[in-house]
């Protein structure tokens, strides 16, 4: 089982991101379960959503306490919510930011984790560019496809097209695709830097 926890704020499409991820996994023949943290969701309030992916039916209903991957849609949560709680040692982390991990004050903390599995992506900027609204969820799923390799960009895009009308879907697909390319490039650069 592969477990993803998504942190963001009300209005950023956190719950939709988990749903889209589950649809993408379903399209690849996997079993998937997405659910929100069930708060009274208000715009701007911290929101958590969860997605489990497995090759067999998923019965477990507890919140994801030991995620294999974290998607952080809003870096201002980093110092408000214990977003890293329970992250497995070899876990994936994708942060929506234009800043570096060092600038976010995470360099030292994340040194304990696998650097090849930690990435940033300017998802809000990509959403503004393609969608015209600061809703970073689709772009982050594109980035997640790249960093984790657990789901294909094609499946993410198909899930986006299933959920939204053509115009909004295509704008989000463009954001997800560019985010995917961005993360792949970042990973290549990190790998070559390590090789040097």
């Amino acid at each position: 089982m592969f477990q993803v926890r998504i942190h963001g704020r009300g209005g950023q499409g956190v719950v939709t991101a988990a749903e889209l991820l589950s649809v993408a996994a379903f399209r690849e023949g996997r079993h998937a379960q997405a659910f929100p943290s069930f708060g009274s969701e208000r715009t701007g309030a911290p929101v958590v959503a969860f997605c489990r992916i497995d090759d067999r039916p998923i019965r477990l209903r507890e919140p994801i306490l030991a995620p294999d991957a974290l998607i952080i849609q809003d870096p201002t949560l980093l110092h408000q919510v214990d977003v890293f709680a329970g992250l497995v040692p070899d876990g994936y982390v994708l942060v929506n930011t234009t800043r570096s991990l060092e600038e976010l004050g995470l360099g030292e903390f994340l040194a304990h984790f696998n650097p090849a599995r930690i990435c940033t992506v300017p998802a809000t900027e990509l959403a503004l560019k393609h969608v015209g609204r600061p809703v970073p969820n689709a772009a982050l799923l594109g980035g997640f496809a790249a960093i984790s390799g657990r789901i294909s960009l094609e499946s993410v895009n198909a899930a986006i097209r299933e959920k939204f009308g053509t115009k909004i879907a295509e704008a989000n697909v463009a954001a997800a695709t560019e985010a995917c390319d961005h993360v792949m490039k970042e990973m290549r650069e990190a790998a070559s830097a390590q090789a040097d």
Partner: protein
Amino acid sequence: MLKQTEGSAAVAEAVALCRPEVICAYPISPQTHIVEALGRMVAAGQLAPCEFINVESEFAAMSVAIGASAAGARAYTATASQGLLFMAEAVYNAAGLGLPIVMTVANRAIGAPINIWNDHTDALSQRDCGWLQLFAEDNQEALDLHIQAFRLAEELSLPVMVCMDGFILTHAYERVDLPTQAQVDAYLPPYEPRQVLDPADPVSIGAMVGPEAFMEVRYLAHAKQRQALELIPAWADEFRSIFGRDSGGLTHTYRLEDAETVVVALGSVLGTIKDTVDEMRERGTRIGVLGITCFRPWPTEAVRNALAGARRVVVLEKSLAVGLGGIVSNNVAASYSGSSDLVHTVIAGLGGRAITRKSLHKVFSEAVAGTLEAVTFLDLDHAVVERVLAREREQRRSGPIAENILRDLGVVAAKIG
């Protein structure tokens, strides 16, 4: 057709396949997505002939369902929590009149303190109202139980409540197999009422009944529910033959072979319990699970048989009979042929408190070791409770309990579990 969708959307599609003729509802979380989806289908003309009636309250929703059903229409509504309480008088009337209404209850806690999260307090508060009550373990079963519910309701001329865990199921996206219209039509014949308000053949429905006949009317309601205990498994078998899967019935058993400890529960927590039991089985613990699908009528024989080999029973329930302990456990103890001292009550998940494998391991291990108390509140924060009690000892005007506890806890927005 396999589909990855939200529990509420799956239930709405299942209800639509049952060809309801009147849908009336008042929105309340976490039921809202179900009736919103049905409202869209009616508005789009996908569900004709069907009337969607907006009402001003839950009391009106059930009253409209009663009127529609008495006029011969297949009627559906949905509610939760305080909404169910607000319609309670009409809920009893629907059962007393023998009207086959189907209602989804998206299970949620009851205030005060106000709380929108899941537990079973709402549905279990209506356990003696005369409705059949079915509990879904996952979204596939929630979908399937609605199809079975219309059949059961109309065959018995009794209303049926389908209970699904609010948020945990209603808001969860998972894989479901949506049946075809032909399959549903093969299972569910058109509604033929036993009683109907028909100007061509007038009858009175709902007359006053005095001491001369009230007992008999009540007895018949009870006898019909007990009779349903034989019919429900038969209709679940028929469901399997048409739809190709096991759903519904009275109970589900899991790894009961040679089980010395049996955990009994209702609803979606059964999944987490089964995963925990698998882990304990791997370590050699003889433990199994009994899921109650049909809570009313209470499946006395099925429960007694399933527990026949159990040396101890743990009833894990999301409900509380304040001043007594468990509600489900009281029913279980009455059906267990062993001593009721061996039936332990674990109150869990009230108001949406997460029920984790870690906590289940602990409490089940205590049961196996013989150290579990008669009544346990899972993951109760004793320090918080003690602080309230100390405050009450120290000062007369100790203030409102809930608000004091929130102040003691501080900001909890950061909590994930």
